[in-house]
């Protein structure tokens, strides 16, 4: 036990006495528990019960996934190619690293190393922010392409439309983290100015985490642009194929006329896409001959591929909400650690939040191969 922790528990004992509680009950032990271990075990039972409801809750979505995929594997093969494997893999690595720092935070808490808990939970929150930053790039990119849930899905055309500058959706996603970055940095500045050590330990990691969201966005944009050529090609081949299947003998003029005539296709995407498609069709068809064989035009429809994206957004979206909730509870742990509250008899909050965080990682471990890696 370090000097700061002794001080902390000292202060708390005083606060306790003032409230007129039992003198033999330290502040960190709730009065209805006999001892620290009973308190810990009760909390542990509680968090496991909660995690079980989470598993059952997610299993409903996995059930929808399993049913739709087993009935229509071809829709999954087609739709999955619009997901960026590299970004998914990077996010998997980020989440695994955050699980490592989380498990390390629990170790530090058990050993009473509160500075270690601050550092480790800070890194965990930063990883969560990177994850959300990459996710924001993925989502905004898909929204721009019309890769939306069933009712809103836009059938994909031969060549995806390229947007100039930042997607407006990405800008929307950046508003809250941007405000948080400003507020937290100002709060950190105040802590430095007033030499408030505890506030510095809280505001510092949180400001860095807010910054890490933009690091994630940058990483996502960089990798998305790097993948754009290959990704575009794949989507191109897929859409070109469905186009070809419908109109086997389309020469340039014919195709263009068809594209502008087609009432069911979005007019902003169809015309330029068809023009470009004619010039690169032969290349795409040759290099993706294998892909083309398994893709039928039927799957490129709101009630087919669109349903894949309904499931995609539902599962990854609910997972992302869990990440945000994780950031909030991790912040609570960070505050307690900055105040030096944890020691070998009282580390429950770190352990419980850790269990929750690992479960969120656990869900992603299944989501990544099941959504991104379908071939």
């Amino acid at each position, binding site marked *: 036990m370090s000097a700061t922790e*002794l001080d902390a528990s000292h202060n708390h004992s005083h606060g306790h006495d003032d409230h007129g509680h039992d003198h033999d009950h330290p502040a960190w032990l709730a009065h209805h528990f006999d001892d620290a271990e009973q308190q810990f075990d009760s909390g542990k039972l509680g968090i*496991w019960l909660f995690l079980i409801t989470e598993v059952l809750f997610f299993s409903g979505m996995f059930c929808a996934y399993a049913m739709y995929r087993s009935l229509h594997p071809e829709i999954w093969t087609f739709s999955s190619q619009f997901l960026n494997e590299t970004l998914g893999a990077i996010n998997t690595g980020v989440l695994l690293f955050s699980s490592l720092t989380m498990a390390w935070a629990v170790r530090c808490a058990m050993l009473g190393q509160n500075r270690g808990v601050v550092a480790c939970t800070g890194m965990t929150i930063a990883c969560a922010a990177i994850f959300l930053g990459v996710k924001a790039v993925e989502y905004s990119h898909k929204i721009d392409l019309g890769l939306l849930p069933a009712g809103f899905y836009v059938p994909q055309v031969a060549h995806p439309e390229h947007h100039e500058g930042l997607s407006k959706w990405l800008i929307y996603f950046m508003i809250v983290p941007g405000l948080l970055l400003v507020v937290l940095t100002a709060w950190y500045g105040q802590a430095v100015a007033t030499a408030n050590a505890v506030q510095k330990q809280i505001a510092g990691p949180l400001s860095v985490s807010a910054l890490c969201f933009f690091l994630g966005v940058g990483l996502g944009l960089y990798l998305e642009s790097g993948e754009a050529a290959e990704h575009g090609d794949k989507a191109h081949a897929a859409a070109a194929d469905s186009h070809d299947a419908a109109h086997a003998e389309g020469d340039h003029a014919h195709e263009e006329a068809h594209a502008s005539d087609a009432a069911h296709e979005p007019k902003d995407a169809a015309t330029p896409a068809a023009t470009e498609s004619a010039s690169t069709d032969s290349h795409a068809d040759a290099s993706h001959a294998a892909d083309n064989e398994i893709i039928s035009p039927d799957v490129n429809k709101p009630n087919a591929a669109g349903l894949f994206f309904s499931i995609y957004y539902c599962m990854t979206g609910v997972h992302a909400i869990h990440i945000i909730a994780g950031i909030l509870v991790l912040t609570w742990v960070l505050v307690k650690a900055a105040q030096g509250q944890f020691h070998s*008899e009282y580390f429950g909050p770190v352990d419980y939040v850790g269990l929750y965080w690992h479960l969120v990682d656990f869900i992603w471990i299944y989501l990544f*191969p099941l959504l991104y890696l379908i071939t």
Partner: protein
Amino acid sequence: MAHSHANQHEHHEKSEGHAHAGHGHHGHHGFAHPSPIWQLLAVFFALLALTVLTVYQSTLDLGNMEIWASLTIATIKAALVILFFMHMIHDKPFNIIMFLGTLVFVALFLGFTLMDAHNYKDLIEPGSITPK
């Protein structure tokens, strides 16, 4: 202060006495089981390696076996997370039974729904919802 400190020592002795007699080297931490750093790092790198493996496996043409290959790798990863990061190896049997029991119920849920869906495949077509 002295009071609360003495109290902690008393708890240390109590918890050492009855709960974790089998873990002698952790005895002085009471009910805490800090994972050794080498173990945390080993699990992390194993998880990373398995992620690389699952990405590589997705490039192979395994046909119908693909889903089972990726699910097997994911389950090994999940087991590593649960056993070591979530400390299930040190947890109470009751918590372990609850969690593993839940996985059994999830398997029943998915298994029976899938069996049912395939029995009525011609009638239930999730892909044939009327478009807008």
